[in-house]
């Protein structure tokens, strides 16, 4: 069965049974600290605290956590290159001169600010993603005014993702066995067929699901809505204390020079 690492972790960790609201308080607080940190200490403390909470307290596998943090790194690196390399008359001390382009000390700092902010924010959001199963998150979102239709569709999407991933993996395996990816030309054709084949299966699956549910009197209400879990005051207090400590460290630590 096709799986997604973060989804697996969300279903198999110590915080799974906790109220989503508790974890949102913690995660949102850490994101706020990471986004508004005036110096590197804020980003570093959020990154470290989120990693420790995820791996030691919630028991998210270290391998899964490392993947979750490393995944956005490609974009962060590419995006940071666009900030670090400047064109035209250099502003500030030039560190690397490449003709019309240059790397200056202020641009290096600007890149470091963005890279650390992005990494720390990603860690804070991943703390929520790796500890809360998607249906729980969607059920909470569905209680927000105006988001019910969107979350209903999102719940349907989530239910269908895994069987489609499985179908796609099988089609791809068959194509590979028939040398469907032997050359660039056949690879493009195979990818087109793979996309179309997956779409047809999604279509057929949705029609069968619709017919099956209609036969059982489905009227548009949600499937199995997860029950509301009580919010633990103690956990919220600890979460707020952690966020306050991170904010304090962020404020008293050294400032970015830019």
């Amino acid at each position, binding site marked *: 069965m096709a799986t997604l690492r*973060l989804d697996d972790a969300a279903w198999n960790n110590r915080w799974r049974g906790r109220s989503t609201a508790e974890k949102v308080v913690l995660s949102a607080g850490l994101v706020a600290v990471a986004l508004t940190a005036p110096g590197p200490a804020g980003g570093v403390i959020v990154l470290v605290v989120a990693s420790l909470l995820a791996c030691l307290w919630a028991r998210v596998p270290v391998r899964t956590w490392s993947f979750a943090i490393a995944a956005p790194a490609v974009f962060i690196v590419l*995006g940071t290159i666009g900030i670090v390399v400047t064109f035209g008359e250099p502003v500030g001390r030039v560190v690397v001169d490449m003709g019309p382009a240059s790397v200056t000390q202020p641009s290096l700092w600007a890149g470091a600010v963005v890279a650390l902010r992005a990494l720390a924010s990603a860690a804070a959001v991943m703390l929520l993603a790796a500890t809360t199963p998607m249906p729980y998150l969607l059920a909470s979102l569905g209680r927000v005014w105006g988001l019910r239709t969107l979350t*209903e569709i999102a719940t*349907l999407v989530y*239910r269908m993702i895994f069987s489609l991933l499985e179908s796609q993996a099988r089609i791809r395996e068959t194509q590979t066995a028939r040398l469907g990816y032997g050359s660039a030309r056949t690879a493009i054709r195979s990818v087109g*067929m793979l996309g179309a084949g997956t779409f047809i299966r*999604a279509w057929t699956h949705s029609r069968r699901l619709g017919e099956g549910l209609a036969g059982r009197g489905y009227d548009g209400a949600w499937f199995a809505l997860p029950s509301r879990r009580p919010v633990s005051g103690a956990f919220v207090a600890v979460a707020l204390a952690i966020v306050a400590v991170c904010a304090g460290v962020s404020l008293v630590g050294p400032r970015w020079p830019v």
Partner: protein
Amino acid sequence: MHIAEGFLPPIHAAAWTIVAIPFVAHGVREVKRIITAHPESRMLLGAVGAYSFVLSAIKLPSVTGSSSHPTGTGVGAIIFRPPVMAPLGAVVLLFQALLLAHGGITTLGANIMSMAVIGPWVGYGVYRLLKFAPWGVAAFGGIALANLATYVVTATQLALAFPDPSSGFLGSWTRFLGLFAITQIPLAIVEGFVGVLLLNVLRSWAGPELRGLGFGRDAATESDREVEHA
């Protein structure tokens, strides 16, 4: 490729979120209208969202040696029209952020604008503008330009957030476009070809269903006629 979590300054992230809200709200109204008129389409919409997510797991070969995935916005916009793509795109981007660590929650608004709003509108617009060209050319143009438009908007969002100290917004924009162009121009061309193949297969496998959704030039003309008669 989407803008990563926390990459945009908080003010920019908030501004893009505010800009994206009306498009998503309009799309949700459209989805509600479709579901009320055709209750059975609820499942189909779910399937389309799941398909868009799964499509992002298909790796495309790229001439630069790297691999990337189709955005799916062009194909989706041609089949289902751009307004529906905004809420569906928002759901797919949310799942990509939380299940694949790709994109982000703080940058969701910015990514919705590039991938779920402007990309689909550009793709659909090009597809309709090329209505006198052969169908394959119109579909290729729509799909490839939807992909390119997504990345041009992403580059614009980044340039607005991080203008070059000496050359300003334009210098920064050119730099981000240049960085993305290395992979995105070949990728857009490949996605265009793959998209045409995909639509061709769909036309032969599920022609009546697609026409029911209003897909294709003949269907569009028929629905236009129906509106005129009404």
